[in-house]
């Protein structure tokens, strides 16, 4: 096995997170840890608070209580633009691409933090502005190749089919070369073939770059196959946390899912 894939220490912890919207409790005192290089899945019925959890991790929502610990640093209030600087990237449940821009430009924006030239240089397209633009374009083309979206790179993403949009969004996240990647239902609404492709991309990235992943997914087959570690939420509470095998046999988890089905 690739040495990068050897699972390391806990690098990201959420501790005692509580979040509510008006009267709605989205998360009640949830804690868990994510170890370096692992693929951690968050599962749970609709409205369990999974997306909210990711939003707390990268600072889109601010919890009323609790904090994060990232690489030993205690963070009480994460800001969205700071999370990117910590190396945390993200895709969204309802695709959040920049609709008016081409696939290429969308992915290029993922590299915004690496751009050093000032806007004056950019206005003259001069010196660093030009060389950076070309260098980043080269990296982005590699991502385009990897995700197999060469043929649509210049198309405004608003015009792309759903499955391809999901890929472009993954591309934008990868362009930042993140250490932690948060994926909110990357395979929702896809057919079997598309799901297989997406699984392959996720595994490849994890394998090749050792990117730590936190993944939300409803398809149990996919979860069991991909994950090293599964966290189960129900009504904003954590009800289980362990290896896929442990989760499969956990009575509370079975009840929660049966409860939803009934």
């Amino acid at each position, binding site marked *: 096995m690739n040495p990068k894939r050897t699972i390391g220490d806990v690098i990201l912890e959420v501790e005692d997170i509580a979040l509510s919207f008006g009267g709605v409790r989205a998360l009640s005192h949830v804690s868990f840890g994510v170890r370096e290089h692992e693929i951690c899945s968050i599962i749970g019925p609709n409205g369990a608070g999974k997306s909210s959890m990711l939003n707390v991790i990268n600072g889109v*929502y601010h919890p009323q209580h609790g904090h994060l610990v990232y690489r030993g640093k205690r963070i009480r209030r994460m800001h969205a633009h700071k999370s990117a600087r910590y190396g945390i990237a993200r895709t969204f*449940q309802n695709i959040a691409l920049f609709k008016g821009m081409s696939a290429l430009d969308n992915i290029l924006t993922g590299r915004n933090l690496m751009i050093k030239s000032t806007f004056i240089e950019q206005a003259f397209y001069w010196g660093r502005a030009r060389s950076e633009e070309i260098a980043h374009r080269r990296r982005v083309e590699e991502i385009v190749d990897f995700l197999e979206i060469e043929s649509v790179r210049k198309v405004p993403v608003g015009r792309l089919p759903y499955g391809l949009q999901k890929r472009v969004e993954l591309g934008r996240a990868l362009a930042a070369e993140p250490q932690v990647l948060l994926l909110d239902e990357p395979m929702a609404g896809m057919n079997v073939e598309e799901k297989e492709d997406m699984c392959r991309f996720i595994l490849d990235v994890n394998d090749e770059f050792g990117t730590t992943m936190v993944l939300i997914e409803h398809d149990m087959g996919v979860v069991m196959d991909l994950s090293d570690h599964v966290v189960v939420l129900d009504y904003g509470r954590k009800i289980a946390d362990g290896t896929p095998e442990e989760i499969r046999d956990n009575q509370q988890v079975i009840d929660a899912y049966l409860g939803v089905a009934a």
Partner: protein
Amino acid sequence: MSFFFEVLIGGLLAGVMYSLVALGFVLIFKASGVLNFAQGSMVLFAALTFVSLTERGINFWLALLATLAIMVVLAILTERIVLRPLVNQPAITLFMATIGLSFLLEGLAQGLWGSQPHGLNLGIPDDVLVIGDMFISTFDLYAAGIAAVLVGALAVFFNKTRVGRALRAVADDHQAALAVGIPLKHIWAIVWAVAGFVALVAGLLWGARQGVQFALTLVALKALPVLILGGFTSVPGAIVGGLIIGASEKLAEVYIGPYVGGGIENWFPYMLALMFLLIRPEGLFGEVHIDRV
């Protein structure tokens, strides 16, 4: 001190009129999510049509009815021609379309009836009422009274009647409203017609005070800060916002104006609303909203 109250009361009376115009905006916004920039042009259109009809010897009530009918037709046409094709566009696109609509209406109104100003006499007594040592214009009092009645009627219409409840359902969730069988296009046409009626009343009251002329369209610009203050969706917000803007505008003109050369009532309400928004972005009665992702 009584001078202060005199100014304050004058401001509050004007404020009621702002509330009335603002309510026209709120109505349309709640039902269709459109900030109707053409509200001011509707005021001009209605007032100009009414005056021109009466000047041609038509009886007051008949002219009122005819103007109302024209405003309803206008509402239906607007729904058909402008709103329906833009249904799924971003709200800001609809807003820009209403700027276009306002040009169209201004051009139509003046093209049809001419651009010259008209006087308008509604028979409301225009005297000065002396209370203690305060002077208050009876015209303002009557106008505010009429506006207040209308504001109250609209609030009741909105909260108590079947159509009103349907309107609110549409505002909360278009899909849901459709699902329970409320025909969206009817609702929109109704709302625009009601807004047309509000424009007519506002146009008459305002026109009687300052003449029916192009400047009437500026009434809408007075109502916009009221909306930022009160929120685009809140009926109480429009009422309270109107009173606040009316009062503070007059007070500022009297107490701050002299130090800066006067004429500040054009921008003061906007600045006031802006300052307020910087402190409380959700407006007077709005709830904190966190974008869902």
